[in-house]
């Protein structure tokens, strides 16, 4: 039981869209400080899984964070408990600056915030939090740029920074490196390691095999909504089911 006290764990997590089973009894674990990869062909249900875990789609089954059940909670509650995510399309607040994008993730606002806004002193520490979050993705110095003006690659990195800001226990990164070139991808891998060293567990979803196999401690492979493989990257490279799932192409050549 003690192993369940930290990180993220799903049990029998299923998502149905009409007759289609998009996620079929998925069991997955992410420990603090661990980098876990989730790969699979297009349409395997990876993003659906992220949506289900974070509360953006209705799912059956159980989700635990830090040993507590969080399925049934609305998305913002899950985030406030330390489960954050990024989006494939970035989904930044285009009309806000980079700094503001991250600030909203730290100070959410609410009835109490009204009184603080009206009568309290402005929090100076927010700026440091913002810069720290941006530094982890290598983007400090662009705090005052309106995010709509950033390139898509930069937007996704700001999305990662936004997910990291605050009290992240587990971060789900949905294709954060799509669109980066190989050099940027290498840099990004280093950043993901840095994130995990800082404490939170990372679930990395990406198509870039060299990134996923190179940086992850463990890997889950999904196909048709089911987890068909769990193991280390080394095991994944030689597993026949994984190879078959990936268009019959051996992992070594996909890696190359």
């Amino acid at each position: 039981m003690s192993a369940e006290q930290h990180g993220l764990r799903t049990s029998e997590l299923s998502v149905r869209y009409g007759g289609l089973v998009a996620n079929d009894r998925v069991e997955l674990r992410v420990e603090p400080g661990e980098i876990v990869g989730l790969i699979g062909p297009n349409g395997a249900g990876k993003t659906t899984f992220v949506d289900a875990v974070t509360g953006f789609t209705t799912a059956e089954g159980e989700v635990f964070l830090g040993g507590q059940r969080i399925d049934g909670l609305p998305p913002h509650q899950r985030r406030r408990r330390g489960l954050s995510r990024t989006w494939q399309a970035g989904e930044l607040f285009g009309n806000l600056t980079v700094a503001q994008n991250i600030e909203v993730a730290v100070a959410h606002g609410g009835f109490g915030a009204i009184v603080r806004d009206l009568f309290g002193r402005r929090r100076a520490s927010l700026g440091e939090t913002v810069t720290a979050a941006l530094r982890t993705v290598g983007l400090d110095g662009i705090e005052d740029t309106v995010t709509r003006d950033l390139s898509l690659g930069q937007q996704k990195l700001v999305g990662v920074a936004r997910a990291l800001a605050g009290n992240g226990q587990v971060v789900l990164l949905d294709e954060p490196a799509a669109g980066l070139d190989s050099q940027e991808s290498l840099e990004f891998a280093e950043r993901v390691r840095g994130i995990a060293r800082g404490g939170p567990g990372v679930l990395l979803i990406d198509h870039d095999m060299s990134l996923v196999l190179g940086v992850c401690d463990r890997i889950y492979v999904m196909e048709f909504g089911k987890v068909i493989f769990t193991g280390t990257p080394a095991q994944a490279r030689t597993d026949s089911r994984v190879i078959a799932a990936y268009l019959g192409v051996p992992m070594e050549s996909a890696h190359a």
Partner: protein
Amino acid sequence: MDTYLQFIVLGLGLGAVYIGLTTGLVLVYRATGIINFAQGAMAMWGAYVFAQLRIDGTLVLPIGRITFGAKPVILVAALIGVLMSVLLGIVAHYLVFRPVRHAPVLAQVVVSVALMLTLQALVVIRFGPNSIVVDSLVPAGTVTLFGVEVSSRELIMTAVMIALAALVWAYLRFTRAGVATRAASENERGAMLMGFAPDRLAGVAMVLASAVGTVGVLLGSSLTGLNPANYTLLVVPALAVLLVARMESIGVVVAASLVLGAFQSVVNLLVSKPWWPQWAQSGVDQVIPFVVVMVILFLFGRRLPSRGTLQTVRLPDVHVPRIRPVPALVLVAAAVAVLALTQDTYRFGVTYSIILMLVALSYVIVTGYLGQISLAQTSFAGAAGFTLSKVTTNWDMPFPLAILFCSLVAALLGMIVALPAFRIRGAQLAIVTIAAALAIERFVFNNYALTPPSGNPIANPSLFGLNVGVREGSDLSRMAFSLTVLVVAVLVVLAFVRLASGTTGRMFLAVRANERAAASVGIDVRTAKVIGFGLSAFVAGMAGCLIGYSAGQLSAESFTVFVGLQILAVAYLGGITSFGGAVIAGIIGPLGIIYVVLHEVFDMGDYYALISGIALIATAILNPVGIAGETRRQIAWLRGKLRARPADPPPVPDRKVLSDVS
């Protein structure tokens, strides 16, 4: 039982009008994705033309008139009336709706609301503000139904409108153009692939919509008479029917229209019964559409179709305000100087402008920052004013406390109106809020049991024994009152700036930009909406109290749906996303200083509504950032010119164009 059947049949007459208007709404929505709030006003124009032709044989055009020697035969007159509405529909299509087909939802709502205000103002100018009697195309008579003698006119009207609706249904169902229109509502490219220009289809839909709506109003107005307000606002129950029909089904439109009309009629019978509570007699028939809308939304809210072309509610950017002492002091000093230099009517106009600025600010909060379209802001203001008359006369609540208390009441109402915003957004939220506003107006403000016609006096405000009331002796606009208004306004604006530049403002903007992403960073979107509506209603409530004090009593006319729409119009004109826009809105708003000048100097009060309506249409199409935003852009451009080199640009790391769509 007999009486009930008679009233049901009478209600079918109203139902027939709903069929006409809602069929038109469905056509336009399916062809363009726009919800046409001006549907009633457009149809009303044709009915007025018809009525005037039958009165004195004059064909009244928007500009100029043609006098026929004799009154035309009734059918010819009707035909001309429908034709005029159709022409109006074509003009509206090309000049008003086509330019905003791909614009943000807010611009579309604003444009059709502006068209509605414009047409209503035009009707007042061209036909006069009073009710007129309309000749009936259908002879009066009776027929025996289930052994009960009922009016045959309503039955014939219903049959005519069902037949017209059936023709529209057949057009959509069986003609290639109709099928393409339906396809366009799913996917515009699909219609183009069928060889149709979506634009042309939209024009055809607008023509059909005008025609069928006008026939309905022509028939209906012979029963009720015509005045500039009644058929304009009949669009609200029609919008309720539109939601019931899920924006598409003509069959449901017919059924729901008739049921709603009959039900409203029966309710009007029931409220006259002795057992019906007296306080709930007025306006219940207007509460019904609102209740229908709410029930429908809570049952089907998530499944209401939205169009295939994904429009985002892109609003002009917000420039986070800061408190800059020097400009702020200059502005306040200017206001004081203007107040000191004016008196009577003009000082009152300036004072009213300051109050209107607060109403406009309430739109800035809920629409500019939170991104939600609310057409109920004057209802919040009115609710506060209404409470004010009760607490100052019954409880002797003193001045500053009273407006705080009443604004809190308004805030509470605002939070309740926020509940539908959990489920819906965009134009559908506009429908709900206008239905709510109309229900509140009819059920509360115009309810003599709650607001006696003898008046709702509001005690003069005083502060530490100092009379800060608006009138004393022959002075109709005292400086003490104006300064009090100014102080209240300054405090509200300071609070607004603190909130807008703080966590709350950021939360609103995040929700406005992307609700899904907002939830994913930990923002409670529902709470944000409740807070936004609450704050905005609070500010509107402040304004409502000041309006109440300025009149010395509560006047329902200050808080009608139309006043609300007019203030929305000027708020949008000024710039819906900024405090500066609210200031401009206050200056040009109804009963504000510009209005007073127009009225006093040029005697053009009637044209005010027309001018503001047309200006709003132009703004929504050409300049969505409003006057304030445009001024800001000009200033920024000028500064850029004056400065040799702009200050260090932010060091953006080399921008690679990443072609990523996965």
